């Protein structure tokens, strides 16, 4: 760069150009240092957490020799086992339902014009932008009113638990799935479907044999997103769960608030390994299907940041 300037403007003072070059390499060094700092910042806490999960000292953060004892405690803990079981069932069920509903919603919005389409579009975006805490409050009030109503009408005494958690997870997951699938649909050549229908395929057949295979990476990406969102959620779940059933993050959140124990270290490491496993899986899906699986990063990032405050 400076060499070019030198050649174009032979009168330029050499000292000044040299000064430029020095300043420039200084900037470069600072940029590289900042980048290393960012990676250290990202990974050092995680690394320390993993290391201390193997420490025998009861004080977290103090090394007391190697042990697998905290992992033994974790495996033997029945409340944690129950919480994991609830987490997995909620995540799978809410993912399956929201993938079906979200894909249909995306298809309807991208391919059809119908009455109420605009309102539907807005309603579909709202769960993504709404703050976690607001959504949690909504679920709390909704289930309290809804169960009161059921009690009044049928004398049914229902409590919050597995069903209410799943219902609230589906409510935010539909939107995320549909955003991801829509991005894929928008990028797909619509004439392929039209060609199939010109060749006497029914709407359903065209969807099943032409559209669906085309948007499959988007559907897979949406499913993975829904799965991680469901497995990670704390705030909404806390308000939708009852004494009957809690998920693992809510249970761990409760433990942390009561005080830090080495048991939490080992549970945390297991949760971390599971979520990193899902990331690598989604990257792999993206790679093997030729990209675009996670949809528009901006929209997903927007929602993701909201869902995890």
């Amino acid at each position, binding site marked *: 760069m400076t060499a070019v300037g030198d050649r174009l403007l032979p009168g330029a003072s050499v000292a000044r150009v040299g000064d430029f070059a020095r300043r420039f390499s200084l900037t470069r060094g600072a940029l590289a240092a900042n*980048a290393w700092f960012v990676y250290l910042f*990202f990974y050092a806490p995680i690394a320390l957490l993993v290391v201390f999960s193997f420490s025998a000292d009861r004080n977290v*953060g*103090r090394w007391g020799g190697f042990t697998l004892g905290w992992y033994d405690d974790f495996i033997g803990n029945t409340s944690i086992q129950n919480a994991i079981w609830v987490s997995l069932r909620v995540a799978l069920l809410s993912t399956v339902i929201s993938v079906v509903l979200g894909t249909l919603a995306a298809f*309807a919005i991208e391919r059809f014009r119908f009455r109420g389409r605009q309102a539907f579009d807005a309603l579909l975006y709202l769960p993504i932008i709404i*703050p976690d805490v607001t959504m949690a409050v909504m679920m709390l009030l909704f289930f309290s009113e809804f169960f009161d109503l059921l009690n009044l009408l049928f004398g049914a005494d229902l409590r919050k638990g597995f069903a209410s958690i799943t219902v609230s997870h589906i409510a935010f997951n539909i939107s995320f799935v549909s955003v991801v699938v829509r991005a894929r649909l928008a990028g797909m050549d619509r004439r392929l479907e039209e060609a199939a229908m010109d060749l006497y395929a029914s709407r359903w057949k065209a969807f099943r044999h032409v559209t669906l295979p085309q948007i499959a990476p988007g559907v897979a990406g949406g499913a993975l997103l829904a799965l991680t969102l469901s497995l*990670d959620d704390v705030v909404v779940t806390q308000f939708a769960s009852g004494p009957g059933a809690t998920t693992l993050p809510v249970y761990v959140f409760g433990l942390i608030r009561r005080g830090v124990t080495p048991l939490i270290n080992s549970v945390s490491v297991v949760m971390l390994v599971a979520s990193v496993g899902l990331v690598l899986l989604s*990257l792999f899906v993206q790679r093997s299907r030729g990209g675009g699986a996670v949809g528009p990063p901006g929209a997903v990032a927007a929602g993701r*940041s909201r869902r995890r405050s």
Partner: protein
Amino acid sequence: MTLAAVPPEETTAGAATPEFERAAARAESRRGFLIAVPAYLYLIVFFAVPLGIVFAYSFANRNRFGEAVFTNIGFDAYRRLAEPIVRDILFRSLWLALLTTGICLLIGYPFSYYLTTRSSKVRNILLVFVMIPFWSNFLVRNYAWRVILGKDGVISRITDFLGLGEVEILFTPSAVVLGLVYGFLPFMILPLYASIERIEMSLIEAGRDLYASGWQSFRRILFPLSKPGVIAGSILVFVPSLGAYVTPEILGGAKTTLLGSYIVTQFLTARNWPVGASLSFVLMAVMLLATIVYFRAGGRNL
């Protein structure tokens, strides 16, 4: 998207049998509605209705047992937001969210720029290592700081070793900001990177050739061109920081109550549902506004 936006009348203009075409368009519209209906109904029952309930509660009153009642409805709960306690919490949340955004921008901007100067192979690997914390469990990532910042934590033992005494920043506003920056830095980096990467770097070279200093070319060329990314990233960090609940609960102390925790307290312990509901609505309004700005800045494509 663009195809779907074309009204059926235009696409069928010049058709031989307009009645038939119109009937077909109506059938098509009906079919679209039927496909949308399951998700539509679900969101109305389990999202719009709950939202309406919160809205209704924000105008409710409280009887002498503290229960929310719908007699004498009005703006009482909203008026209470101006009280010193609530106002302090609002300002504190706003300040910490702004601080978090500023720090993220300060660290994230040079980082994103650095990424764009790497070869595409290195860049992809570096990006994956930004994506991993971005996708991994938020609760656990916050908890990790608890281990580091605590009384027996690594930081306090390092400062003790250096003869500075045991410095404990856990349960202070600094710890909350640290946790928020840690949690949301990837949300700053990714849109910033996306917008800086698109900038034609020859423009900067041209500026340098015309004797712009490094600072000048940043100030006059790079920064203005990367503005959409700056706006998008700032909103992605600011908005969730404002409503943060998990981070302040884990890393903050009793003296640093923030908006999110305050709202939760109104429902779980203080049992002042109207105030909690009105605050959640205010929070949502801020987010809606920010989202509009975000999309205006081109956030959808970043």
